[in-house]
């Protein structure tokens, strides 16, 4: 039940400003996801909150208590690292119990908590093994278990799924979602560059760009009402189509954004027409790349398999005129 407040938080490495004055409030028990392209400062922001990195200026408070100068363990955080960061020479049990032993917990209490966490993550049978005897997914679960046993006030994840293969990533994502449901008294912050992870896990998403907060909101808010072309382009897959020039002028905007799933092929008299360059069939859906004379081909998403051949002339229209208008500065018009 911890509220985290970031006030004008800054971080510089030498002359280089990485975090440029971030103001953000993370609600109690919320699952907040920091998302953005590489180099946007999302990992640094997480490390500032964790206490692994010193804050250059600004204040960070947990429940109205300034924690700028507290160590990670004093802040009551737990963290899951991208590379698992397990202690190679310790068994799974010792890995999970290490923090508790340092905190001078009773032996029975430690055993109870480790066993509970192990059961929750289904790693009980591996408790006697060393990390090198485990697969990547199992290692990441041990890392999560190590964080759980400390019963943290704030749970931090630093791109925990990036080292896993695609199938395992989906499975572990579900585990984390379940974990959030179970640990409903814990505030969680999750860093990722994968917008699918962000959309599926988050209560709220914070999109970062060049050390600044670009937009904060629920996944659907970001999807439906992006406050800039940057957010509009970042959230959603495949990416939103951006049209400029005469295409945008028709809608009285400088930049026009249309999501591939909001476009449809029509028989005739579509808003735009062009030649089909290429189609990608995924079975359940397909993506059509149509050259309508704009800078980039227009991407259209269709249910099922595409039945059009490359070179075919097609008419395209936005469904229900579902478009996003942006002004010169990239803000909604």
């Amino acid at each position, binding site marked *: 039940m911890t509220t985290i407040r970031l006030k004008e938080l800054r971080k510089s490495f030498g002359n280089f400003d990485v975090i440029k004055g971030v103001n953000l409030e993370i609600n109690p028990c919320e699952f907040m996801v920091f998302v953005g392209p590489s180099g946007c400062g999302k990992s640094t922001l997480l490390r500032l909150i*964790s206490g*692994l990195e010193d804050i250059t200026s600004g204040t960070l408070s947990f429940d109205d208590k300034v924690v700028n100068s507290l*160590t*990670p*363990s004093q802040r009551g*955080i*737990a*963290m899951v*690292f*991208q*590379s*698992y*960061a*397990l*202690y*190679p*020479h310790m068994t799974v049990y010792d890995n999970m119990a*290490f*923090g508790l032993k*340092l*905190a001078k917990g009773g032996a029975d209490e430690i055993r109870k908590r480790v066993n509970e966490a192990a059961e929750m993550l289904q790693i009980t049978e591996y408790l006697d093994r*060393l*990390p*090198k*005897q*485990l697969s*990547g997914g199992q*290692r990441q679960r041990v890392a999560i278990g*190590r964080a759980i046993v*400390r019963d943290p006030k704030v749970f931090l994840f630093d791109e925990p799924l990036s*080292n896993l293969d695609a199938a395992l990533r989906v499975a572990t994502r579900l585990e984390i979602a379940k974990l959030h449901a179970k640990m409903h008294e814990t505030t969680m912050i999750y860093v990722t560059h994968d917008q699918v992870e962000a959309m599926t896990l988050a209560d709220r998403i914070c999109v970062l760009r060049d050390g600044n907060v670009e937009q904060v909101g629920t996944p659907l808010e970001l999807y439906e009402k992006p406050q800039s072309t940057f957010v509009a382009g970042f959230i959603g897959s495949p990416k939103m189509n951006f049209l400029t020039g005469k295409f945008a002028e028709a809608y009285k905007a400088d930049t026009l954004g249309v999501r591939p799933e909001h476009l449809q092929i029509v028989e005739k008299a579509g808003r735009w027409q062009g030649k089909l360059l290429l189609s990608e069939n995924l079975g359940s859906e397909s993506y059509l790349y149509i050259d309508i004379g704009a800078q980039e081909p227009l991407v259209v998403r269709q249910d099922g398999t595409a039945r059009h051949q490359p070179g075919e002339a097609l008419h395209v229209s936005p469904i229900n005129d579902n478009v996003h208008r942006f002004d010169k500065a990239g803000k909604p018009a």
Partner: protein
Amino acid sequence: MPALVKQTAFYALVAIIVLFSVFPFYYAIITSFKTGNSLFTISYLPTSFSLANYVSVIEAGSFTRNLLNSVIVSSLVVMLSLLIAITASFALARVRFRGRSLLLLTILSVSMFPQIAVLAGLFEVIRLLGLYNTLWGLIFSYTIFTLPFTVWVLTTFMRDLPVEIEEAAIVDGATPWVIITKVFLPLMWPAMVTTGLLAFIAAWNEFLFALTFTSSTETRTVPVIIALLTGNSAHEVPWGAIMAASVIVTVPLVVLVLIFQRKIISGLTAGGVKG
């Protein structure tokens, strides 16, 4: 055909290198088993077998005491320099502070001074500290000379340990001392064993300081005692006894290397982080 030539040349070279490095020790061993006049006849195969030299070395004078001295001095030097080096290397590898690389270079440059250059100065220091003619004087001076190497090697090794493991320990509430002893130390065994062994060998074989900083037979270490072994008259060099003593002194080193060779396992950090 060329493959055969290559292979033959390769093994010939191996044989030469082995012969070259093993022969002196081999010759010392067979000589140590000879007595009387046969010591002065050259033969490359064992001709006689007698333990008389060993008996006389061990029984005569203070050899066992000197052997014990060597063991004490070398072991303490290893422990002391590893303890100091591991804490120093943690600071040099992991703590960001001004002048860090300068300090590292200074440490390295200390090891470049020849022993003889610092001998007089060090002698004064040892006298001043009241360590003259004690084992502590030797331990002190040997530690000074082994530290640069151990610090340098352990620093390089510690730099390669994943930062995330340290950060995970910090999040778990570990202090720097706990990180060093509970997390890094177990991962650094291969490096510790290697540097410790080299420090041991250096201390074990050291001659100049041992000769200068000790004066009584009871505080001498083995290398000095062997050099000072005398026969019944001034003109007699007791080759047999010297060879027997040399073999006794060399065997512990060989045993140590053989024991720890098994412990020098690479890939001890495997599994902790990705990969």
